[in-house]
């Protein structure tokens, strides 16, 4: 019980920390923020329930006024801003990603984590993100989708990286991969 709480809290802190260390590159000099990568890792490492709880805890603190979102952003304003859909989508993305990793045991962890991250961390997340954008900006779904399409390739790569990182984590700290416990 204590270990669950500690892992959930530390992964919530990890999402925050990943948003606050300087942006790093994908390797082509394209800067990316690692926060959504952190959300995917919550799912792939902690599994569906604990992963979603970690992300929810993170969002709760952002709502309470802590500047934990990339760029030092926070506060209630974010939940009525264009990013609101993505914020709401984060815990659901982590849940879906974790669910896929937990249930699909036949394939290697790295592959399952990567694909799970694509389904949860990209597809599901963008569904919520685009819906939120459409509502806040008063646009139609296709119009809102057009606004974010440029970010899809980078997020797709992030999902693959989540798979690679999870596989490496399983070697370094096998006991911590709760999604496969």
């Amino acid at each position, binding site marked *: 019980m204590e270990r669950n709480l500690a892992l959930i809290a530390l992964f919530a802190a990890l999402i925050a920390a990943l948003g606050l260390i300087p942006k790093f590159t994908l390797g082509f000099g394209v800067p990316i923020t690692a926060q959504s990568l952190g959300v995917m890792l919550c799912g792939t490492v902690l599994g569906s329930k604990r992963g979603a709880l970690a992300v929810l805890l993170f969002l709760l603190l952002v709502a309470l006024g802590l500047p934990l979102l990339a760029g030092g952003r926070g506060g209630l304003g974010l939940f009525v801003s264009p990013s609101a859909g993505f914020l709401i989508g984060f815990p659901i993305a982590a849940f879906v990603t974790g669910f896929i990793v937990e249930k699909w045991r036949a394939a290697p962890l790295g592959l399952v984590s990567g694909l799970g991250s694509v389904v949860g961390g990209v597809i599901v997340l963008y569904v919520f993100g685009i819906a939120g954008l459409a509502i806040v900006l008063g646009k139609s779904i296709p119009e809102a989708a057009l606004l974010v399409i440029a970010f899809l390739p980078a997020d797709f790569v992030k999902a693959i990286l989540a798979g690679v990182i999870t596989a*490496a984590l399983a*070697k*370094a*700290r096998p006991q911590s991969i709760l999604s496969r416990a």
Partner: protein
Amino acid sequence: MEFNELAATVEMTGVTLSRNEKPLLKDIKLSAREKRIGIVGRNGSGKTTFARVLSGLVAPDQGEVRICGIDVVKDRKAALRSVGILFQNPDHQIIFPTVEEELGFGLIQMGCSKLETEHQVHGVLKAFDKRHWAKAQTHQISQGQKQLVCLMAIIAMKPQVVILDEPFSGLDIPTRLQLTYYFDRIDATLIHISHNPESLQGYERVIWLDNGQIREDGSAASTLSNFTKHMNALGTQDDISELIG
């Protein structure tokens, strides 16, 4: 390891640095040619900041740092070839899962080919008598072994100056002595930073950093003895109670 006839030069002029209006380094002036230099001081005296500024990782507000004539802040590429820094905690320093990858990282970043990197990495492992470590997992080795990996990763880049920032933190006596054996065999200039005078015995020159300033600069014997006397005197006081800010 190559035998380096010409000792490296370390020049710091008017180096000043403050953070959040708190001065950390105050007008540091240093000119050194020795091969074994010690920096001693209490925790909070500015030693860690000194190490970061000396290696070029942090730019001072004022002043210049030149190692072998290179401005380590402005010319990062040249600085990376000339200065290496070993940090306190190897857990915050090792990035890669295997020893090979960790050792090869700096070389690849410098532009070495895969083949050349492999060759250099195996060269360093051989020099340290650790060829069997090539495929070892960095997360499974002991703290002392991790420090050695970090040291090898630095030596692989063949720097002229190696800064050791409190490298013995948390290590037991045998591990410290063993690491010292490896330090002694390094041909580059060593600048060893420590709060423990015992680690700096036998160094050519020891500088005492106090409150961001150089308090004493001379032979190991005299500086360390004065430092130790002062530390023991402070031990009878109670500055541990003071809160900063």
